[in-house]
């Protein structure tokens, strides 16, 4: 009977270790909670040096610096600078501007309140990135109401010019 009990204990131990490992690494896997820029900026001291998950749209330019790159991710309220490997940055296709909705990325990385590597910048050094929503060009539709208003005003302007010319004669 004794060896059977040992076997049972061993199985319990393995299960406990497995459960502990899953619980411990849970924040690092996909179900980790995304933190907003507002929360990061307002509680920068609290999150300093911690592993965080942040999500936002790539805006502006992807700025390559040798083996790394800077991208700025806008989560709707603020944009935060992300320092990442150039190979990770290479997966970015669209960057946001007036005519483009940029790729939406989820970043898993280390948050720095005042990064000593980057002159005190508030930034995140990304380790893993995941594209949650690909970007796309935005089709600009001509606003006909504005166009009509332009034409009406053009008529008024011409009238004002004609009146001015006639009166000066």
């Amino acid at each position, binding site marked *: 009977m004794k060896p059977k009990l040992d076997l049972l204990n061993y199985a319990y131990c393995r299960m406990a270790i497995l459960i502990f490992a899953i619980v411990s690494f849970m924040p690092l896997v996909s179900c980790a909670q995304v933190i907003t820029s507002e929360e990061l900026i307002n509680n920068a001291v609290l999150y300093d040096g911690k592993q965080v998950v942040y999500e936002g749209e790539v*805006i502006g330019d992807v700025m*390559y610096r040798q083996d790394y790159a*800077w991208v700025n991710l806008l989560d709707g309220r603020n*944009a935060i*600078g992300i320092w990442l490997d150039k190979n990770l940055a290479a997966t970015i296709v669209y960057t946001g501007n007036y005519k483009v909705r940029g790729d939406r990325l989820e970043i898993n990385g280390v948050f720095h309140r005042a990064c000593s590597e980057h*002159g005190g910048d*508030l930034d995140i050094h990304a380790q893993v990135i995941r594209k949650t929503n690909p970007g796309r060009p935005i089709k600009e539709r001509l606003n006909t109401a504005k166009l009509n*208003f332009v034409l009406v005003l053009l008529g008024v*302007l011409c009238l*004002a010019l004609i009146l001015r010319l006639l009166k000066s004669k």
Partner: protein
Amino acid sequence: MILRPNLEDIKVIGYYLGKVVLGLGLAMLLPLVIGLAFKELNPILDFLIGCEIACVIGLLLTKLCFTEKDPNWMQGMIVVSLSWLVATILGAIPLYLSGHWNSYLDACFDAMSGFATTGLTLVQDLDHLSYTHNFWRHLIMFIGGQGIVIVALSFFVKGISGAFKMYVGEARDERILPNVIHTSRFIWLVSIVYLILGTSALGIAGILSGMRWINAFFHGICIFMAAFDTGGFAPQSQNILYYHSLPFEVITVIIMILGALNFKLHYHIWTGNRREIMKNIETVTLFITVTLLFWVTAIGLQQLGVYSGALALFRKGFYQFISAHTGTGYQTIYARQFLNEWSQLALVGIVVAMSLGGAVCSTTGAIKMLRIGLVFKALAQDIKRIILPEKAIVVKKFHHIKDRFLEDAQARSALIITLAYLVLYALGALIGMLFGYPFLPSLFESTSAAANVGLSCGITNTAMPQALKITYILQMWAGRLEFISVFTLLGFFIALIKGKS
């Protein structure tokens, strides 16, 4: 007895106001070029609407109020103060039409902030704003920095005597060249030369930082216009932090300092008199205040260990500090970081730097270095008078382009304007506190608005009370024009109501 202004007064004011409005309408053609280049259809329409409205109003005013008379002092001052209000209302039209401002008041806030070279902003989703609108935001800073009326002086006004009154009304009481039209053209020449050099330097820095060349040069010209005119707008929501680039920060610091120097000093440096920079009371005062106040700010940052290394402390601390002192308002930290992370001592250093500003006849706002220098010289003179025997004659000299004796009238004038600024800062802080904001943040934001700086600790946002937005608009206006023309306008309205014909 107060005399009621007559029809001739109103005609002269209307005529010159019309010219300024026409100039503004024509200035809106420049963003149209950007819109055509980037094929941005709706922004082009926004600017066509703005341009047409301004031109119609300008044409009507110049026609209905046609006169060949030059404006007198009162009329010139009123033209200036009204021009800034009308330019704000008209300049806000294309901004509001873009849909990036929540209300017309918000668009007017940004237009005044732009023209007055302040830099506080209420724009929404700036990172998706069109190139056309973004260019206009920075262009109005460039126009405002030179002086809205100076634009009209340079291109539309032929008469010289009337021109000088409007030149003074825009807080520029120094003529660089004997003729005021030539002076305003020289200011444009200086600005254009630096524009080419600054844009090139920033564009190259942008490319080296990894930006696309088109964006690098677009950002270069925008950042130059806002930095040289000590404005503080930037094309992206993160302001200068967006670039994550030391060269970019160094170049903007140089441009900010150039913008904070007197145009008269630029003239002397350009004509070979480089020693003037070492002797001038303004540069000497600037050097002293920068040294002392940065020392205060740095101690404040060191107290809480905000930045771990000396390099980070200097890079963050000095950048925000010099941006505050020159009245630019560029930031490489988030607004909330000021309150959340910086110590009160560091914030006091920044607030005092903001309240002082740069040189007279520059693009900065605030009290300005010449007045600070004169007030301290006058104080030293009075102390000497007390210490020395009664029969001793105490004279105080200062060097500003040439050696001058300090006269009581000069000292009194400097003290009155200094006092007026202090009252304006305090008044804005008081109104902020009435809306429930704490003392230091209220004072920070009020000083930033009234001194035309643009640094924000987070109070300025679209959700703040409407009355506070209006307060800051008025502070930016009064602070930029240095009170005299604003007081003249108030007097004009009182005379309209209470005056006798």
